[in-house]
């Protein structure tokens, strides 16, 4: 327990500027990382609408899917994909910090865990693609 503290009225209290996240590259990348979730959620809503149209019958679904070839929708999906990939990579990296990968008594360098995750990610993606094509 400490009994001695400075007089609060004489302290200078700094304030974070509103644009703090623009002042450092790492902060900016952090905000981008957090905002990947917005693009992923947006994509999922679009996907949900797509599935909703499926419930309205094949005609409605085909009509809805037809619009996806337009440059606007392609652009949307391309941007969503870019953010989704950014999410995947940052997620694998941050997970490597949370879960140390032990090989025997040694803790493996983080990039090993990250690369391992990337490999699993690519394998899972290929598997999903294969299942879809075989179906």
């Amino acid at each position, binding site marked *: 327990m400490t009994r001695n503290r400075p007089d609060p009225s004489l302290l200078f209290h700094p304030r974070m500027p509103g644009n703090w996240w623009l002042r450092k590259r790492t902060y900016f990348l952090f905000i981008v990382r957090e905002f990947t*979730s917005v693009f992923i959620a947006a994509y999922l809503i679009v996907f949900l609408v797509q*599935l909703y149209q*499926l419930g309205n019958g094949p005609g409605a679904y085909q009509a809805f899917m037809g619009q996806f*070839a337009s440059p606007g*929708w392609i652009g949307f999906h*391309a941007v969503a*994909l870019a953010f989704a990939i950014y999410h995947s990579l940052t997620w694998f990296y941050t997970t490597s910090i949370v879960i140390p990968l032990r090989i025997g008594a040694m803790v493996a360098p983080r990039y090993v865990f990250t690369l391992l995750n990337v490999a699993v990610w690519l394998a*899972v993606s290929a598997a*999903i693609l294969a299942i879809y094509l075989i179906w």
Partner: protein
Amino acid sequence: MNHRKTLEPMWWGLFSAGGVVAAFLIPIHIVLLGLAIPLGWLPGSAEIFQSWIVRLYLFVLISLPLYHWAHRFSFTMSDLGLRPIRKPLAILCYGSAIAGTVVTAWVLLRI
């Protein structure tokens, strides 16, 4: 320090699960359904969605990342200046994720 009980472990658990699902599964879905099929690189068929296993999978695929969004969005908006309304913002975000879960289930059931 305020030692109130909190639901934050639950929200964080859902956020993490959503983050994992999004990281491993979402990109290939965008590639497939958002780019490859509309651009005609691959044939588009909706038959696969009739499967119950696929629909269960889709439920997980869509609902969990919504919690991931809710968690990150509410924290990030707080960090970007909405800290004064942190509580209502959190209720709105997590509430939206819950609503999204219900809607997802409904949509998948009516396919």
